[in-house]
């Protein structure tokens, strides 16, 4: 495991903040298309989950500009920490997202699997705790839902990497 070997070409970094859905298969394929030095792509899809059967949608508010910059900073930290990574993609949606729909994708490509897995988990841990997004619930009965509370466990997961 040549963890300290530099990638042969600069790593590809793709960060998007958008209202539209994304194509998971196409995004993962793009991380290794046309190259033969990538052995591993680890990825994560986060979905709008309905805990109690009462959710109409989550409204994702974001800080335009900073959201993209902050995710880019997290992705650059991952590239610095795992120099063997060949590519990282992070896409985060905003706006109204119903249960079952995709919210976020992170994917990391590398010659070997450990760096790809670790980087994908690192990206999610810091994206959760640093990217300026906030979720508000809209309920099926039309009543106003609550703002989703931040979880201490998410801070603890991010702190593991320090």
């Amino acid at each position, binding site marked *: 495991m040549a963890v300290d070997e530099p990638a042969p070409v600069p790593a590809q970094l793709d960060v998007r903040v958008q209202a539209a859905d994304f194509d998971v298969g196409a995004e993962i394929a793009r991380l290794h298309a046309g190259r033969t030095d990538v052995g591993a792509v680890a990825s994560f899809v*986060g979905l709008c989950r309905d805990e109690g059967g009462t959710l109409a949608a989550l409204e*994702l*508010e*974001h*800080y335009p*500009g*900073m*959201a993209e*910059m*902050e995710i880019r900073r997290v992705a650059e930290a991952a590239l610095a920490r795992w120099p063997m990574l060949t590519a990282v993609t992070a896409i*985060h949606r905003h706006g109204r997202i119903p249960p079952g729909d995709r*919210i*976020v994708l992170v994917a990391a490509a590398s010659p070997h699997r450990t760096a790809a897995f670790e980087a994908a988990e690192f990206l*999610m841990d810091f*994206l*959760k*705790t*640093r*990217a*300026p*997004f*906030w*979720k*508000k619930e809209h309920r099926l009965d039309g009543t106003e839902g609550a*703002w*989703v*509370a*931040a979880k201490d466990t*998410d801070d603890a997961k991010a702190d593991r990497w320090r």
Partner: protein
Amino acid sequence: MKLVYFAWVRERIGLSEETVDVPDHVVTAGDLIRWLAGRGDAYAHAFEAAAQIRVAVDQEHVPQDAPLGPAREVALFPPMTGG
């Protein structure tokens, strides 16, 4: 100084953004939160749990004890819940 608010901070204040003249004694991000909390009931409610409030200066996270310096845009918001 331009202030921007998000999530329940925005809802409690009733504004997305505003431009304010900040008095000289407001040096750090924490000073700003304490000063804003004194601007009326809506602000007091928004900033009642002051320690929870996150601050970004020109779109970068800063701790509450960081000096604001020549900030163009200061954002105040609850802990993030994206992902």
